């Protein structure tokens, strides 16, 4: 049987005629999970989420229930819930759908989560470019307050929580949770160093704070609706629920595909659901989970041992779409934003495009990230410009090696990983580009820088 979608998060928003109005959401079972939640003790809501095995959808895949457990409840300071709707990782466009087409689903998840951690104030940090999205959310919050799902005395429980929509200013690094917190405090989005600034202890206004991705909170709504144990049955042990694969780049049918974790492979996603490569082309590589994850090349073999001890030997097409299998292949599920490259692409241009992104987005606090991202961008661009030397290839790797692991936030890894993964896999092609471009010849294919 060919791979199939299993819409959970996107189930409603894909229904013909489904709208953002609260009445439409209520007709589709909306806010029933919140009713259940406020009739349950907050610590039991946390337990449901722990049982569900839900992992964060913001990129790092951290278990959500465990994150909530780290919340410092002894300090006596107020706790905050911060929703990360910054959606800034290139290749990622899944949260936009929830915000623009089914905002109440996320708001219900927010209300449940706020109850679970007993936060009386939640902020939705939404990327500044989602101007209309912010309006849709604000309208939805007003509707939810008018019906008693948010605001004061939620569903007569005596518990109150205000939700404020806060627009960012177009900065990638403000998607990083501590950069986001600084930004929300009205400052430059300079990420904070951990320790001591773990958000669950010293977050917003130095108070305990839970930062969760927008989709994570939509998933929480379903955990409560069906119960943690039922939710855990979706997907596979170690990775439950659905993943939304946002495929972009050079495939026949780019788009968003929601698939039960581990129940399809990259081959099924790219051929069955996305229709395969464009006519006359062949797939060359994918960046599986947003631009910061390590690149995979078609034709590579991935070998290793799974946690249960069984050995695997996969082609890229065979890799199952769950967090642990993808990690076992040396990369990450990340945000599920899969960027597809085909044989028309000159790989040094693709690398140069991403290097330029990271050089533009570094906040500049850490020397390795600030200087390294600029150097990588300049060196790769110099190659494309025809001024490359063969030594540039090992130099790219050398620079990247000096960035990863030496910075305040994971932007350092985001700078390094594309280079560290691509150089060994495409070294020969880079050398060929260097020689060709020194002769003043170009490559055909799309211009990427």
């Amino acid at each position, binding site marked *: 049987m060919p791979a199939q979608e299993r819409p959970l998060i996107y189930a409603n928003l894909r229904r013909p005629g489904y709208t953002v109005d609260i009445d439409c959401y209520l007709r589709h079972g909306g806010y029933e999970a919140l009713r259940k939640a406020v009739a349950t003790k907050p610590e039991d809501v946390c337990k449901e989420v722990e049982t569900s095995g839900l992992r964060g959808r913001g990129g790092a895949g951290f278990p959500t229930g465990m994150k909530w457990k780290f919340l410092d409840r002894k300090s006596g300071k107020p706790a905050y819930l911060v929703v990360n709707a910054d959606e800034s990782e290139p290749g990622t466009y899944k949260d936009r759908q929830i915000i623009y087409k089914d905002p109440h689903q996320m708001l219900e998840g927010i209300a449940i989560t706020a109850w679970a951690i007993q936060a009386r104030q939640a902020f939705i940090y939404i990327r500044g470019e989602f101007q209309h999205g912010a309006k849709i959310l604000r309208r939805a919050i007003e509707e939810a307050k008018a019906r008693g799902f948010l605001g004061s005395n939620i569903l007569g429980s005596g518990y109150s929580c205000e939700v404020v929509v806060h627009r960012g200013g177009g900065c990638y690094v403000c998607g990083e949770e501590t950069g986001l917190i600084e930004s929300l405090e009205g400052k430059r989005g300079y990420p904070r160093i951990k320790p001591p600034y773990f958000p669950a202890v010293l977050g917003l206004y130095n108070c305990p704070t839970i930062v969760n991705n927008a989709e994570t909170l939509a998933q929480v709504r379903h955990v409560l609706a069906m119960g943690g144990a039922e939710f855990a049955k979706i997907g596979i042990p170690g990775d439950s629920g659905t993943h939304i694969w946002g495929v972009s780049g050079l495939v026949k049918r780019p788009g968003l595909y929601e698939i039960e974790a581990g129940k399809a492979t990259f081959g099924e996603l790219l051929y069955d659901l996305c229709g395969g490569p464009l006519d006359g082309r062949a797939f060359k590589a994918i960046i599986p989970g947003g631009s910061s994850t390590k690149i995979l090349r078609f034709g590579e073999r991935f070998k290793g041992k799974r946690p249960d001890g069984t050995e695997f030997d996969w082609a890229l097409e065979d890799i199952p779409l769950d967090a642990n299998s993808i990690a076992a292949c040396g990369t990450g599920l990340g945000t599920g934003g899969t960027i597809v490259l085909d044989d028309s692409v000159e790989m040094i241009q*693709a690398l140069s495009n*991403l290097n330029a992104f990271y050089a533009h987005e570094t906040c500049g606090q850490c020397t390795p990230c600030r200087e390294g991202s600029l150097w990588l961008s300049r060196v790769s661009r110099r190659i494309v410009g025809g001024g490359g030397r063969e030594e540039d290839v090992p130099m790219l790797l050398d620079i990247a090696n000096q960035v990863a692991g030496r910075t305040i936030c994971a932007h350092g890894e985001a700078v390094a990983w594309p280079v560290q993964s691509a150089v060994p896999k495409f070294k020969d092609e880079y050398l060929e580009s260097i020689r060709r471009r020194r002769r003043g010849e170009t490559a055909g294919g799309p211009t990427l820088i």
Partner: protein
Amino acid sequence: MSLKPETLAAADAIVAQYPQARSATLPLLHLVQEDRGHIAPEDEAWVAAKVGVTPMQVREVVTFYPMFRLAPVGRRHIRVCRTLSCALRGSYALMAELEKALGCARGETSADGNFTLEFVECIADCGCGPVVQVDHALHENVAPDQAAAFASRIRESLADPGYGKGEPRPGTPEWNG
């Protein structure tokens, strides 16, 4: 030129949403920029006073975030996504065509002040590339060979008195923006 009375009136309610006033810095800057089109030194001073910091602390914020600008842009602000997913679908070729059709180089404002044309980084609509944000509207799948027609529509919108005033409808560029 001073800010509109509505802008001035909206500020206090925005500040009151936050446990600490300084958090209102970005929202107030957005408010000002939507009113004036850019952020003037007097606006920075006004925001600073509202949130209780120095004007320099506001300037620090303005210069950190790519969306804020200290100088006006053209009557139409055209932002083409440059990042990989859109580039693979032709955003560089599209940019070259738009430069010709609008008579405006990337990163610049046309001599008549009508257009500012820029490359921007990923705006989270990567499956529909190339995407182009024109003021408040997000246009998807703008293929390079449609650039001339797309540019004409932008040019025509200059003469449309209702531009930007309608209520966005689902599935339209205004809704997606």
